[in-house]
């Protein structure tokens, strides 16, 4: 069974967290804050992943994704809208003719505990409905029991099915327990063909954190150094305010470099974050905070 060929990389938690904390202390002001907010908006995967998601809800979200702040022409569209497979056709239709991509979770999201056949069928259905990007989950049970071959093979099979569609591989870092495991899973996913490695489903207690993003950036950087290929990072879950979003940009900038500060290589999966970015943007441009009712709530 194919598996990881790169070196085993250890991570020391104390120093990792201290470095992540130092990066979170960067003071992003004035022109940098404006640029960062705009960049963060461009990198958002505007997400709705609830059991009660409906066609109407997805259409509203798509409208907001394309034009987050009507009347403010400088506010860009987000990168993508992220939905369950059943709602891909709705999103696809609502976003036709725009730059906003449709991303679909797949492979028995969020647990990933189905047979490979079911996972592939799930992915195929999303792709057939027009998904541009697939957010798959790894089988954490297999990973934690040491069955890395299965994880590797599943990612490979989904990647093959995806063809040109962008594949984001969710590691669900909150379930992996240690930074060593997060680093190992990152290396495994990158080597198996992930275009992007993603922190979380948003469905467990701990989602994206700064040290987690840092350790994943280090994996992406080392992979690029080894192979010359620039893969991407997506942080998801719990990214609610501008300060957090700017810190993730800082982590990416200072670990991977400016070449990664693009929606092709960096995404933030979020729903309410966009509202805070818009509020902070308005504050930077006008000097005043708008009331939350001035921001479209979808």
């Amino acid at each position: 069974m194919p598996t990881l060929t790169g070196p085993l990389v250890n991570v020391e938690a104390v120093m990792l967290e201290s470095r992540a904390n130092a990066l979170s202390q960067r003071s992003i002001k004035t022109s940098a804050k404006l640029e960062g907010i705009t960049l963060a908006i461009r990198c958002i995967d505007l997400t709705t992943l609830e059991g009660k998601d409906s066609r109407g809800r997805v259409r509203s979200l798509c409208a907001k994704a394309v034009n987050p702040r009507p009347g403010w022409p400088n506010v860009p569209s987000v990168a993508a809208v992220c939905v369950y497979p059943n709602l891909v056709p709705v999103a696809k239709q609502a976003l036709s003719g725009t730059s906003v991509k449709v991303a679909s979770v797949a492979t028995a999201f969020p647990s990933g505990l189905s047979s490979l056949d079911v996972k592939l069928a799930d992915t195929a259905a999303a792709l057939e409905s027009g998904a541009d990007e697939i957010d798959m989950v790894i089988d954490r049970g297999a990973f934690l029991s040491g069955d890395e071959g299965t994880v590797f093979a599943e990612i490979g099979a989904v990647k093959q099915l995806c063809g040109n569609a962008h594949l984001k591989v969710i590691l669900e870092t909150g379930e992996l327990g240690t930074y060593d495991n997060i680093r190992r899973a990152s290396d495994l996913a990158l080597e198996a063909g992930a275009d992007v490695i993603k922190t979380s489903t948003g469905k467990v207690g701990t989602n994206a954190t700064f040290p987690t993003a840092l350790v994943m950036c280090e994996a992406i950087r080392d992979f690029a150094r080894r192979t010359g290929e620039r893969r991407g990072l997506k942080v998801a879950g719990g990214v609610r305010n501008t300060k957090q979003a700017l810190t993730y940009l800082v982590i990416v900038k200072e670990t991977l470099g400016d070449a990664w500060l693009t929606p092709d290589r960096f995404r933030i999966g979020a729903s309410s974050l966009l509202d805070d970015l818009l509020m902070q943007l308005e504050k930077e441009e006008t000097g005043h905070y708008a009331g939350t009712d001035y921001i479209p709530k979808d």
Partner: protein
Amino acid sequence: MAIFDYAPAPESVRPQIREDYGLFIDGRWMPPESGAFFETVNPANETVLARVAQAGQADVDRAVRAARKAYDKYWRKLKSADRAKYIYRIARAITERSRELAVLETMDGGKPIKESRDFDIPMSAAHFFYYAGWADKLEWVMRAGRDAQSLGVCGQIVPWNFPLLMAAWKLAPALACGNTVVLKPAETTPLTALALAQIIEECDLPPGVVNVVTGDGTTGAALVEHPDVDKIAFTGSTEVGKAIARRLGGSDKRLTLELGGKAAHIVFADAPMDQAIEGVVNGIYFNQGHVCCAGSRLLVEERVHDEIIVRLTERLQTLRLGDPLDKNTDIGAINSRAQLERIEELVRSGVEQGATLVQQQCDLPSRGFFFPASFFTNVHQSHRIAREEIFGPVLSILTFRTPDEAVEKANNTPYGLSAGIWTEKGSKNMWVAQRLRAGVVWCNTFNQFDPSSPFGGYRESGFGREGGVHGLYEYLAH
């Protein structure tokens, strides 16, 4: 084109700086007898911040007399719990004025504001809090059945690299033990010690318990040689430390010395590499390398040498050198022109002796004293840059093949203040740590400090410990 460049983020608070500072003696500010003042400059832009009194023999005499009087009449008789209250008061006042003190420290010394804000000032307050708690529990420092007795008048001489913090390290335990103090701050960085004197004044400490005399080396020498001083505590260069030790030889003055270092920072091939690189960066570039316990000799296992050079070279480019008051600055100004010249001279010697210099690529500000983050490869134990303390942002990288060789090279120095070890193997970490002759050994981390943890050197890095219970012992009669 660069994306998402950080805009300037200067700290906006401006501390009150007087035009002239006299000496703080017997609870009052007074001019020096000689009338002589010297200027203290901001090393980041070479502007004069204030004029500071040059204390001479007569002033030191006055300060020691005031300290003796305060000791005999008041401080030694005070209930220890009441001493604690004064020290707590100082700790709280430092906390309340931390932002102003941080800016002052950065302006006078050149260190990045993030370091003075997040390290120097909070740690200074922490030392006063910690030792305040000890003041009425001193019998626990002594062996059972022995009383804890104060020493008397302490002369304390502190360096310019952590001006307020070093003053705190010295003052807090001395006061907690019931001693009175004459403090001599460094010539290039007197302002936070003078601000501390103002705080002490506002905290209503009895006059003469703490006296601050500013000046150059002659002021320090007068303090060292003063017959009525019971103890000298000095932090600074090994050269001056040796001179002090010679002068005090045969006298009954107590002495503790915290001197230079040339710490070995050992990285094994099985180290958690990204974090080891961060540890190395922190170890040598923290405070522009003006750190006596800096990890200035990097010993790397030969098989990972090239990988480490690649990673370190890349990491160097992300360090931000510039205005120390900018909150995003990682490397601030070199403390003084004299220090900059010493760094430049040693770096030249490294190049001349055949080592390979790698430097951060960046523009240096046109004014002020700056030196880019640098390291040398192809360094050998015989090179000056492998033996002498550079006290700047310059790392010397050597290699080893086995743990035995790592230990041998690490210990092959007259110094012994600190050391660092990076390996995933716990047993190897302990094996090496036990064999390193250094006062502090950090395992898979570096530059960790806490008031409860003792700090001090072996051999030419000095003797005596500061911090923790051990730090109290140095200020008690035994």
